[in-house]
């Protein structure tokens, strides 16, 4: 567990100012309309924040994992939807970080440095938790691949310059035939299908991607054919704590809004909330603190290049579940005020934190497998 450095605190402060100016005032409006905030990318351009995870040699900010978590928490605090825009763009480039060569990194990261965004396309209508039953195909013809299929619930899809798309290069092999590709916007045959309306994170853009005989150069293959599942899993390991950070921001926001509400509701110092409410606030604070420390620890592991896959799943699950719990308690605490105000948005936004980038059930599978795998070894040790 590390304590934030002066530089990280400075970044946190700058991010807070950005969020207060460019996100919080617009969150309700775009939540209501269900549209993407078009000015958001312009506002963020100068700060290069969409290139926060891009290494220095490619012109990015090269933020450590911990610093990224600090930034994402603030974005989640401002708006879970807009935070999702940032997290999803970072997610897409994580695949290139994991499996891309130097030339691919140059190509993929350049738009991010210019302030553009990317999308990660793995999910299909029939392949959610079970990513291995994808049906989208990429057939090699000469020095090109031809992609056909549909991806769904793709964040940023309508606004992204670049995409990482997972498709089967060998459908007979199932998961082992899955490969990852860079696909640029505007390729003939590559179009946007339905734009999804959602319970929450409504200011983020979620669309269907349609591929009809989309030709891409063979040099867009990330890593080797058949390595797609491995790349996707490594990418998600990197990206899951980002969701934890957003969830944490949402939980912190809910707590702060509760405090504001109670200060308004009990202006008279002689009439103060009862212990039920006092303890609820204390519990929220305790759990948020634990969640933040857990997340920062996970990020510190990653920054120290120590394996962190299980910790990543733990942080995502804990923070996602916590955001749901704290936001629904906040709505309950505020009663009718909560039900009719922007607070209910926090609850709607929080729900997706338990679903996307691997449902918390899938995280629990990952975690329980690790627990079971380590158990016999521990028993052996004890036996000796």
């Amino acid at each position: 567990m590390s304590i934030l450095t002066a530089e990280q605190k400075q970044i946190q402060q700058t991010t807070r100012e950005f969020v207060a100016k460019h996100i919080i005032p617009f969150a309700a409006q775009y939540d209501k309309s269900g549209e993407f905030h078009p000015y958001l990318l312009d506002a963020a351009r100068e700060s290069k924040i969409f290139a926060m995870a891009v290494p220095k040699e490619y012109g990015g900010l090269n933020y450590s994992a911990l610093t990224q978590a600090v930034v994402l928490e603030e974005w989640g605090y401002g708006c879970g939807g807009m935070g999702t825009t940032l997290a999803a763009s970072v997610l897409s480039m994580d695949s290139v970080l994991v499996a891309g060569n130097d030339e691919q990194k140059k190509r993929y990261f350049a738009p991010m440095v210019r302030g553009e965004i990317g999308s990660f396309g793995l999910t299909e209508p029939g392949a959610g938790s079970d990513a291995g039953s994808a049906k989208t195909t990429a057939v090699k013809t000469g020095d090109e691949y031809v992609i056909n299929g549909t991806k769904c619930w793709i964040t940023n899809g309508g606004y992204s310059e670049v995409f990482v798309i997972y498709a089967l290069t060998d459908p007979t092999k199932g998961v082992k035939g899955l490969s990852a590709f860079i696909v640029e916007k505007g390729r003939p045959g590559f179009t946007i299908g339905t734009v999804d309306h959602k319970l929450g994170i409504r200011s983020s853009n979620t669309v269907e991607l349609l591929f009809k005989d989309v030709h891409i150069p063979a040099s867009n293959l990330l890593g080797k054919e058949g390595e797609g599942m491995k790349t996707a899993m490594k990418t998600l390991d990197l990206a899951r704590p980002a969701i934890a950070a957003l969830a944490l921001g949402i939980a912190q926001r809910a707590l702060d809004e509760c405090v504001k509400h109670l200060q308004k509701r009990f202006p008279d110092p002689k009439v103060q909330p009862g212990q039920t409410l006092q303890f609820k606030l204390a519990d929220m604070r305790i759990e948020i603190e634990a969640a933040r420390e857990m997340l920062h620890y996970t990020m510190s592991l990653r920054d120290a290049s120590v394996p962190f896959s299980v910790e990543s799943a733990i942080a995502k699950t804990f923070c996602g579940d916590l955001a749901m719990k704290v936001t629904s308690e906040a709505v309950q605490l505020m009663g009718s005020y909560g039900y009719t105000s922007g607070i209910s948005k926090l609850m709607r936004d929080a729900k997706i934190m338990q679903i996307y980038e691997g449902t918390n059930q899938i995280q629990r599978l990952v975690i329980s497998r690790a627990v079971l795998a380590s158990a016999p070894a521990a028993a052996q040790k004890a036996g000796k």
Partner: protein
Amino acid sequence: MSIYLTEEQELIGKNAQGFAKENLDPIVVELDHTGNYPADVVKKMAEQDFMGLFLPAEFGGAEAGYVSFVEVIENLSRSCPAAASIVVNHSLAVYAIQRWGTAAQKKEYLPSLASGKTLGAFAIFENGPTPGVGPDALMAVKKAEGWVLNGTKTYVRNAGKADVYVVLACSDPAAGAKALTAFIVSSKAAGLTVGEPKETMGLKGCPVADLNFENVMLAETAVLGAVTEGPELVAETLAVAAIAEAAQTVGIGQAAVEHAAAYSKSRVQFGRPIATLQAIQTLLAETATDCHMARLGIRYAAELLDNGEPFQVEAAMVKQFLARLHSKMLLDTVQVEGGFGYSEFMPLPRLFRDIAGTTLLDAPADFPDKTIAAALLA
């Protein structure tokens, strides 16, 4: 408590279910989108006697009792919780008038409320820690010719559509919340205005707004119950609200778990329907169990009410139980449906937004615990 519903109660519940499927299912999505008051549906519900279900026949009621009432509310809520909400809030005004009204008040108001010719609303909330003590508290001042009301009631359901409001006002500033008095106020009363409709997270179509009183003159005959009898009237009416709203919560939970169960059978991942996964079965089983246990508690409290026995503690317990479990029901069922469940083209997001409202809108959050603890500590 009778273990089974009577034939009549079961029939009334089944009829309500049939009615809801035919008349509410087709409008529910649009209602959620527009939030427009469903006047046609309210009229049809009145034709089914839903607006005066527990009232005696002499006032035009169906005389079907409170167990039947909660059966109807649960079944309406399975299809359209917002429509059920309109009936529930109306029924609170009806309950208060039939319980505390004079013979003349009952005769004047109940028949048209029972037939649905008029709509009722029950207004207790104010913008302060408790009614009667905030800056905009509704104050009632006694004059020679009756009462003058000034102030604001907030979060009033059915506001703007109701014809008859039962409102709680403070009739003695020094005594604050202890001196609440109930009044029957016509929507046409001079000086009474309805604020902007409040946008709510769910239950869209059930209006919510403020009622603003500016020198509203009421005759002495507008007082419901005795002067300063308000606290008892509120406590008992909120207990009725607790039962009715619990029935709404259970209706929503039941609809959600049935939808999630059907979904889990058709959704194939890892080469088999997710219904075969233990983790999914647990989510479904817990929700179904919570619904069932709550339903038993609701029927029990309603039957106490039917038998004229004290019911407030049991009603509060149902509310307490569901205050802990209502959000879990929808969080878990949405979780079963994953990304699909989160999308607005599926029904669970709407039910998710609705279910929170069923435990929030009518009663202060501390009402159940206070009631239960007071009984235990007495």
